[in-house]
Structure formats: structure tokens, C-alpha cells
């Protein structure tokens, strides 16, 4: 409870700031609407207001700010508008909507649950492929000096380059050879989660110190025994730390992968929202993606906690 107080205070401050910021952000549209409704706005005419400072407009028209938090397609929709849209495009759309799962038996293509599940599928498949291959490569690197010296520097360098730039090309190239749907996005997710896992896992497999490896040598343990009984257990905390980075990267990969081909998914939803000025839809998709990332990272943290406790690591 003691830890929660400050966090809640900060979150409340952010929401308050959001509300305050919505006033100057939306002032132009609010005043235009008020003027159309017959109010006297200073200065008159949307053209004359265009280059006036936003804060000056707020101060000079303090009486006409009532619509700031209820504008449609606002530049910055207020938090409750976003929450409303979030509710409308998840629960409402599925339960009471014509296309929803209750009435039609399949997820509505206008709901965030539908788009989120598309993104989630690609994220999970890509993450499993990427982290699986990453662990395998790490095992190879630890056991083969040739592989270590040849591949490891490149794995480290790859962390410094924006490999997400490859995403549009991968989508289009795979599309042109007939692969579409979930797989191209999963490929992007996979290579984004691949390198962090390799680097973290190599570090983890190397974490047993000389004393521990020497002890195993005095026991005459074979290489596989040393791997299964010492190196692999020792690498688990490192593995989970990099899995958390990996899954967050996978989600980014899946979202970016949805930009070039508009076939559903949160990325497509965001791009659609930005094309058509549907800001509430855009913010709702963003918050949905954020919640998904938080849940995925939390899930891995939960598995980590369970695993470490089973392994007897005191927490």
C-alpha cells in the first residue's frame, strides 16, 4: 500500500495534465464550433485565428471552452473520450454490436479485440521462433569457439542498428513469393527478439564463475552434464531478463509489420486512424497495444517468479 500511493499520485498527475493540455490543443476546433453555434469569439473567423498563439486564444475566449473535452475527432481527445472509445470498440462492439461475437459468432472486424488478436498471434509466433533460435545460437556460441569469435561480434553490432527498417521489405518480398497473413509479421517479430535473446543468453550461460566450473571438473562431469546442471540453470535469470526485452520488441515488430499491408491488426488500425483523423480510435489502439505489452511483460515476469522459486532461488 505504501508503494502504491506515490504511483497513483503520479498517474493522477499525468491524467490531470492530459486534461489541461487538451484545452490549448483543441482550442482552434472548439472556437470554430462555438462560432458556428452563434457565440462571439475573439478574433473572429477561423482564418484569423490560425496563426494566433494557442494559449492567447485560451485566455481571450475563456467563456467558450466548454467543448474542449467532448470534441469529436479532437487533436487531443480527453482521457474519458479515449476510455469510452476503448469500451465501445471492445466490449460494446462484441456484445451488443451487429458484427460482434454474440450476434454473429465471430469477432467483429471493427473491434480492438479482433485487431489485437491478429497482432498478438504474430507477436507470439514470432517471439517463440526468435527466442528459440536465439537460445540455440547462444548454446552454439558457448560451446564452439569458432562460432563465438565469428558470430558474437555481429550479434552485438546488430543491437546498434535499426533492424526494424527491414520490416516493409520483408512484408513485400514474402508477399511477392506468395507468403502472406501471419507469417511475414512473425518473421519480423522473430528477428527483433532474436538478437537480445542471443546476447542475454550467452551472458547467462557464461555466468558460472571459475570456482563452480572447477568444482564440476573435480567431479569429472562431462560437457553435457556441466551444461544441464550448471550452465543452463545459471542462465535462467539472464534468459528471463532478455525474454522481457524480446517480447516487447516482438510486439513492436508485429505492429510495424502491419503498416505496409492493411489487413487488420493494431498497426493497421493506428495507420487508419491517422489517415482519417479518427484520433479517438488511434488513442484507443495505442492504449490497447500498451496494455497488451504490459500484460505480456507481466506474464513473463510471473513465469520468471514461479520458475525461480521452483529452482530454489530466494527472491
Amino acid at each position, binding site marked *: 500500500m505504501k*508503494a502504491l*500511493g*506515490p*504511483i*497513483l*499520485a*503520479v*498517474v493522477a498527475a*499525468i491524467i490531470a495534465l492530459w486534461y489541461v493540455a487538451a484545452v490549448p*490543443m483543441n482550442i482552434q476546433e472548439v472556437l470554430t464550433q462555438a462560432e458556428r453555434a452563434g457565440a462571439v469569439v475573439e478574433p473572429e473567423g477561423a482564418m484569423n485565428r490560425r496563426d494566433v498563439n494557442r494559449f492567447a486564444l485560451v485566455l481571450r475566449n475563456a467563456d467558450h471552452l466548454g467543448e474542449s473535452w467532448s470534441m469529436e475527432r479532437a*487533436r487531443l481527445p480527453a482521457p474519458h473520450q479515449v476510455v469510452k472509445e476503448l469500451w465501445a470498440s471492445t466490449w460494446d462492439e462484441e456484445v451488443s454490436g451487429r458484427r460482434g461475437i454474440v450476434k454473429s459468432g465471430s469477432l467483429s472486424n471493427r473491434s480492438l479485440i479482433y485487431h489485437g488478436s491478429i497482432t498478438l498471434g504474430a507477436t507470439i509466433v514470432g517471439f517463440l521462433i526468435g527466442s528459440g533460435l536465439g537460445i540455440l545460437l547462444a548454446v552454439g556460441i558457448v560451446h564452439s*569457439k*569458432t562460432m*563465438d*569469435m*565469428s*558470430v*558474437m*561480434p*555481429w550479434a552485438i*553490432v546488430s*543491437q*546498434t*542498428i*535499426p533492424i*526494424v*527498417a*527491414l520490416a*516493409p*521489405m520483408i512484408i*513485400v*518480398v514474402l508477399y*511477392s*513469393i506468395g507468403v502472406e497473413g501471419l507469417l511475414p509479421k512473425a518473421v519480423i517479430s522473430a528477428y527483433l527478439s532474436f538478437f537480445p535473446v542471443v546476447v542475454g543468453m550467452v551472458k547467462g550461460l557464461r555466468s558460472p564463475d571459475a570456482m563452480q566450473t572447477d568444482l564440476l571438473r573435480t567431479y569429472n562431469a562431462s560437457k553435457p552434464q556441466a551444461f544441464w546442471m550448471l550452465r543452463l540453470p545459471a542462465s535462467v535469470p539472464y534468459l528471463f531478463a532478455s525474454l*522481457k526485452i524480446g517480447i*516487447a520488441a516482438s*510486439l*513492436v515488430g508485429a*505492429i*510495424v509489420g502491419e*503498416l*505496409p499491408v492493411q489487413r487488420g491488426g*493494431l498497426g493497421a488500425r*493506428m*495507420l487508419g*486512424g*491517422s489517415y482519417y*483523423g479518427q*484520433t479517438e480510435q*488511434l*488513442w484507443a*489502439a*495505442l492504449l490497447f*497495444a*500498451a496494455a497488451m*505489452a*504490459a500484460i505480456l*511483460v507481466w506474464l513473463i515476469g510471473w513465469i520468471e517468479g514461479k520458475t525461480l522459486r521452483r529452482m530454489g532461488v530466494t527472491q
Partner: protein
Amino acid sequence: MILVFAAVAVWIGAWAFNGWLANGRFSDLASVRLAVPLIFGATVIVVWELIVRGLQVPPVILPPPSTIVGAFFGNFGVLWPDFVQTFAKGALGGYVIGCGSALLTAILVDRYDFLRRGLLPVGNFMAALPIVGTAPILVMWFGFDWQSKAAVVVVMVFFPMLVNTVAGLRDTSAMQRDLMRTYGASYWQTLFKLRFPAALPFIFNGLKIATTLALIGAIVAEFFGSPTRGLGFRISTSVGTLALDMVWAVIVVAALTGTAFYGAVAWLERRMTFWHPSQRK
């Protein structure tokens, strides 16, 4: 088919040579440590070239490296303004603003324990979110030019930098702080003479993470709208016309930029934190 066999032969030969180098008696020499990855990289490129030519892979699927190098030098006049737009204006501008403001916020957060306990969990949470998703919103607010890209970069680098700096500012022992108190040092003196230098390894860790994020943010933000130049713009338009050699050339530029940017920050780190155990030879 001969070319494909040649590729296999090159791969086996180079791998055997690398194995001999890595397991031989010179494997600890600095030159060998540098040579082995370079040989591996060169092998990958040669094998790529031979296989693409041998199997006659169409250039709209995978262009051979020689074509990419040709596109890189042939379109230098196009790529340079792209680089300036994306890196010098978008990424670097956002990087400086984002890291600078995170640093100042961190000093404030560190001063008040309440803020630290409130903002740090929120910051940790934000650092894991797909912040790239704010790109369409920021492009809508700040227009198509580099300002919106810089804004995306600011949002992306802010939280990792904040979390690292706050962690660093706490990385002094009670003994060290007590010593400063016995000297009668003020808060600011303690900050600048003890805690800030002690925080530098953490700050540089944040700065290094932020280099990659800055480039990612600047490039991805251009996918949501940009003027007719920029690396992200070039990628999305070249993909549209299936000019894949150009796409690869842009990726080469992005990779070189990212590595050089990271290298520059790492060099600065070595110069400024030479006293830290991790930097000692």
C-alpha cells in the same frame, strides 16, 4: 549450379579457416580477434552473391550485394539528403532534447523521494511499451517534417534514460556520502563532485540504449508520413516500386549510422569513465 557449389565450397573453406584461427595458438591476438568476424562477414556476403547469381534469384526478391553496393554509390546524391533529414535533424535533435530533459528530470526525481517512488515504476512500465505507436499522433501534431520525428524520438528515449540516470544517482555508498558531509559539502557540491560522476556509467548505459531507439523512432515515424526525403520515406517508396537494391542501400546507410552513433557514444564513455572497473584494461 557451379556458382552454388562454389558458394558451398567457400562457406566450408572459410569456416574451416576460422576454426583453425579460433582454436589455434594465435587466437588471443587482437588482430585474429578482429579478423575472424571480418572473415565471417565477408564469407556471408560472398555466399550471398554466389547463391543469388547461381540460382538466378530475381532482384525483386533478393538483390546480390554487388548491386546493392552499386546502388549505394550510384545514389549517393539521394541518400545524403535522406541521411541529413533522418539522422542529423530527426534522430539527433530528438536525442539531444530527450536525453537532456530526462537528465534534468532525473535530478528532480532523485531529490524528492516521493517522486522517485512514484515516477520510477511508471518510467519502467513506459520503457517496455510500444512507444513507436505514438508516431501517428505526433506526426499529426507536429506535421510531416523533422519536428515530428524528433518528438517521437524524445518520447522514445526519455524513459530509458530517466530510469538509468535515477538508478545511477543512487549508486553511491553511505561512506562516500558521509565523507562529503564531513567536508560540509552542499547538496549541489555533493551532486556535481560525487554523485554525478558516480552516475556516469549508468548515464552512458542509457545514452547507448537511446542511440538505437533514436534511429528506430526517426525511421518508423517516417512510415506514417514525411516530406519527400528521409531514410524511412526512401524505404517505403522504394519498396513500393520494388527497387530492392535501393532499399538495401538505405539499410546499409542506417546500419552504418547506427553503429557509428553507438561507437561515438561508447568512445565518449571510455574518455569520461576511464576510472570505472569495466573500462580498465
